[in-house]
């Protein structure tokens, strides 16, 4: 008698086992990469040709010593207060030319956010973790102020806009739209964070 119904069916019962094997292999080898961090620009090696004179009151000095203590504007400061102090300094608007500042307009503090400079100095024996915390707070101070202005001008957070602008998956039409906005907010509070060479402890 002729056979009917075509070839016999292949038993696919072990397919799940094979798939599980592969799955477990990939589960074990997967490392979710940590690819986020604080972006910083180092100063170029060549010093600028012209000596720029900066008024002392426009510089906010932050010193970290080897045991992780913090000196902000010659005052021993708790790390938790650093962000508030830096924001007060940046937002001061001492000479009255800054019409979006909400600071105290203290004549002995910074003139204008565009002139204000934060200078960070650390010891060679400072722990890297402490350094990152300080960097984080200073960047946070800028971000908070920029968020405030972005909320006022465009009704959304600056960090949110910037993340969308930098995301390569954002369509270019939206990116082109965001670019001037991001730049505008950046110019209101330009990030001027200078890092002096480290001192040796003595």
């Amino acid at each position, binding site marked *: 008698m002729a056979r009917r119904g075509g070839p016999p069916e292949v038993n696919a019962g072990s397919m799940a086992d094979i798939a599980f094997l592969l799955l477990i292999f990939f589960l074990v080898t997967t490392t979710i990469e*940590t690819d*986020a*961090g*604080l*972006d910083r620009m180092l100063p*170029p090696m060549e010093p600028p040709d012209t000596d720029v004179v900066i008024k002392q009151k426009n510089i906010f000095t932050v010193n970290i010593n080897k045991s992780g203590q913090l000196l902000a504007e010659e005052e021993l400061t708790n790390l938790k207060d650093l962000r508030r102090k830096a924001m007060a300094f940046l937002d001061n608007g001492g000479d009255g030319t800054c019409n979006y500042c909400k600071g105290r307009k203290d004549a002995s503090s910074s003139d204008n956010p565009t002139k204000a400079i934060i200078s960070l100095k650390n010891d060679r*024996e400072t*722990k890297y973790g402490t350094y*990152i915390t300080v960097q984080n*707070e200073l960047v946070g101070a800028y971000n908070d102020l920029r968020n405030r202005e972005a909320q006022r001008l465009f009704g959304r957070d600056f960090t949110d806009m910037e993340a969308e602008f930098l995301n390569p998956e954002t369509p270019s039409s939206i990116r082109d739209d965001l670019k001037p906005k991001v730049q505008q907010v950046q110019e209101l509070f330009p990030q001027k964070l200078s890092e002096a060479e480290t001192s040796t402890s003595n």
Partner: protein
Amino acid sequence: MSKFTKKKDGDLPAVSTASLPDIVFMLLFFFMTVTVMKDSSLMVENVLPNASEVKKLEKKDRVLYIYVGRPTRDYQKVFGTEPKIQLNDKFASVTDIGPFILEERAKKPQELQNVLTTALKVDKNANMGLISDIKQQLRKVNALKVNYTTYEGDAFRNIE
């Protein structure tokens, strides 16, 4: 009466496992797509600090990595316990960083050479002295864009 006797004696029907391979394959494809194969194994301890104001590091092809930390236990006999620099697969000294950056930069396509970022993956217990030396070296070869790679979290956990 026969209506009742016909009933089966309480056996549960077998659950069909025919869709199990599909589910497993779905998971498999998920992990296959998110997996990133490591190109170098770590020889240093690398517990990154936390930070909250982080930016995502997009485009892996424009990033160079420098690892810093204490050598792991296997290497401590040979290299001691002071934090060391790891470039690719070997330990390096501070002066090796300049040539390393130039070499890696030359490997990249022309249009990317000016937009490279150096990601510093530094253990949170390293000292800043070493980091500043690295930064000096990076400035010398004009690799000015750096990213201090961190975990996303509360920055104050670093100082505990």
